């Protein structure tokens, strides 16, 4: 108790720095995967992608990130065990932030595919199991999180498969693909608007004081979907097809129509990423702030101050602006095969999966979900070639990331404990 009273301000300041560092890392690297598909498909310029990322990452974190933050903050560790020694939880959460941030930095430097989600969960479980006690970890919850890591790419893959098959059936495989693209793209846009707002309305808005019934949520989501559809119709009004551009690839004009749709799915993806990965980054910070703010109570019910999300969002934006555009440029220009129609199917499937996971409070990996979705398009025989070796590496990486995050967290935990005493 005395440690918290004595060093409270210092600890909060440190935790803020670590949290910002972690969010910065997410912004500098992880966002690129989320936005790269949109830039790669030629639907967005890098500048547009960054603008969309800034706005929608932030909105996602603020509007739909609450449940994931809560899981990270108090779902993985059983707070009951720590009532007497809240400072241990403070050290642990700070150590986890630092561990995940450092691991992200190291891995990015060497070009290893890592997931922020896996590193932060690994870090928290690691410090709790070793630094406190094995019973301190809510293993049931951890089990369901790990299960969701397996399930989410599969679900995203299934969704992407169905979406791309529907594109093939309704648009590509018809007598007049261009006319059908114009007809169905607003419908797909409706889907984008509806899914995102439905999850936000049902799961996300409680903490800003907006309680909606299920029926109301559905109604407002339909309104939002229709609005997006109308916007799509408006944006695609000037797209025409010309014979010359379709000589080489007959669907060039069709893909231009899908470019409009891709803009919306890029927003959805940024929103989804914000709701899950930003929430990961600020979860431990929220835990530290709430414990210290309550004067050492391991509070269960305290609400999350919005400035924490602001800090997380700020860190992401800083990372994006400083490094993100370079990463998006490399990610984006490498993917020539990802036309807007394919990019849309993969991105929307991933975004939907991630947003639903965010709504249920499951921290999942956006990158892995997106990889699953891209494979789904591939299984629909819709992609020229996918490198399965790289896919294998990406999925293997989370097995490596867990012990690495845990090890670093344990190290930092004992260092912090040594510095501040405890």
């Amino acid at each position, binding site marked *: 108790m005395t440690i918290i009273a004595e060093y409270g301000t210092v600890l909060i300041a440190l935790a803020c720095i670590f949290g910002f560092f972690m969010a910065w890392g997410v912004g*500098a*690297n992880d966002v*690129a*995967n989320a936005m*790269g598909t949109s830039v*790669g498909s030629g639907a967005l310029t890098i500048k547009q992608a960054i603008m969309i990322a800034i706005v929608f990452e932030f909105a996602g974190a603020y509007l739909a990130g609450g449940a994931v933050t809560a899981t990270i903050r108090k779902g993985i560790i059983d707070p009951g065990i720590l009532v007497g020694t809240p400072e241990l939880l403070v050290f642990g959460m700070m150590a986890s932030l630092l561990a995940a941030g450092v691991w992200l*930095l190291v891995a*990015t*430097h*060497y*070009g*290893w*595919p890592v997931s922020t989600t896996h590193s932060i969960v690994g870090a928290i479980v690691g410090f709790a199991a070793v630094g406190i006690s094995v019973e301190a970890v809510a293993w049931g919850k951890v089990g369901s999180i790990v299960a969701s890591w397996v399930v989410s790419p599969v679900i995203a893959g299934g969704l992407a498969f169905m979406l*791309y*098959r529907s594109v*093939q*059936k309704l648009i*590509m*495989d*018809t*007598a007049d693909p261009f006319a059908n693209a114009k007809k169905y793209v607003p419908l797909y846009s409706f889907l984008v608007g509806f899914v995102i707002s439905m999850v936000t309305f049902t799961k996300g808005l409680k903490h800003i004081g907006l309680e909606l019934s299920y029926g109301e949520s559905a109604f407002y989501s339909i309104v939002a979907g229709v609005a997006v559809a109308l916007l799509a119709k408006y944006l695609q009004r000037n797209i025409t097809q010309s014979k010359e551009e379709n000589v*080489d*690839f*007959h*669907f060039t004009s069709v893909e231009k129509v899908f470019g409009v749709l891709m803009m919306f799915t890029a927003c959805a993806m940024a929103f989804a990423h914000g709701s899950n990965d930003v929430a990961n980054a600020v979860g431990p910070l929220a835990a530290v702030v709430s414990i210290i703010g309550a004067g050492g109570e391991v509070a269960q019910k305290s609400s999350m101050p919005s400035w924490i999300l602001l800090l997380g969002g700020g860190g992401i934006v800083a990372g994006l602006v400083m*490094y993100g555009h*370079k*990463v998006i440029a*490399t*990610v984006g220009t*490498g*993917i*020539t*095969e*990802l*036309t807007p*129609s394919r990019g849309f199917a993969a991105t929307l499937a991933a975004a939907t999966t991630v947003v639903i996971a965010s709504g249920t409070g499951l921290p999942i990996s956006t*990158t892995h979900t*997106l*990889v699953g979705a*891209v*494979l789904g398009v*591939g299984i*629909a*025989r*819709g*992609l*020229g*070639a*996918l*490198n*399965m*070796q*790289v*896919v294998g*590496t*990406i999925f293997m*990486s989370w097995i490596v990331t867990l012990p690495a995050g845990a090890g670093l967290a344990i190290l930092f935990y004992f260092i912090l404990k040594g510095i501040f005493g405890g």
Partner: protein
Amino acid sequence: MVANSSFMQMFAKSPVKPMQQHIEKAHACAMELIPFFEAVLAKDWQQAEVIQKRITTLEHEADTLKRGVRAHLPKSLFMPVPRTDLLELLRMQDRIANKAKDVAGIMLGRRMEVPDAIAELMLAHVTGAVAVSQQAVTALNELDELVATGFRGREVSVVEKMIDDLDQLEHEADVREKELRHAFFALEKELPPIDAMFLYKVIDWVGEVADRAQQVGSRLQLLLAR
């Protein structure tokens, strides 16, 4: 901080575009046979040599493209079509270029002259073979559309129709080849026997250009059938 993103590396270079470039290059080789034969018929050996060099250069370029496709097709790729079928298709495409080069090479090397009596039929034979190879290019241009539609539905029928046309063109080329052989048989005794033998060989090889182009079509059909 900016490193290679693994996510990006997941998207391997699609073989579709290089395959299309390759057959266009192979067809460019075959196409040169028309001006080449015109030069030979006019006994303009200087011009024939220029064109033969051009064919050789084009064939080298096709070889480079072929190697590029092969180098980018490791076993770990996940593609909408079997890798072996694709490589087989590539091999067939490449043989169009090879045969064209052989024809030009042997004719120039031996300064082979075509008797005036069969000059017109010879030129028709060459033009017919080039038309078959042109149709193979047209069919292969649909490969990216096939990938976009997942090798299903209308696009498959479109390509199947193209392959039917290809077979028809090859059949016509066969008929013309028979006519040419017949006409040449009538006057073969007037030529030195060795020259006559080699001219039969050339007729044969020009026919093979058409044959290879048709083979490209049948390999493409293998990709559709699944």
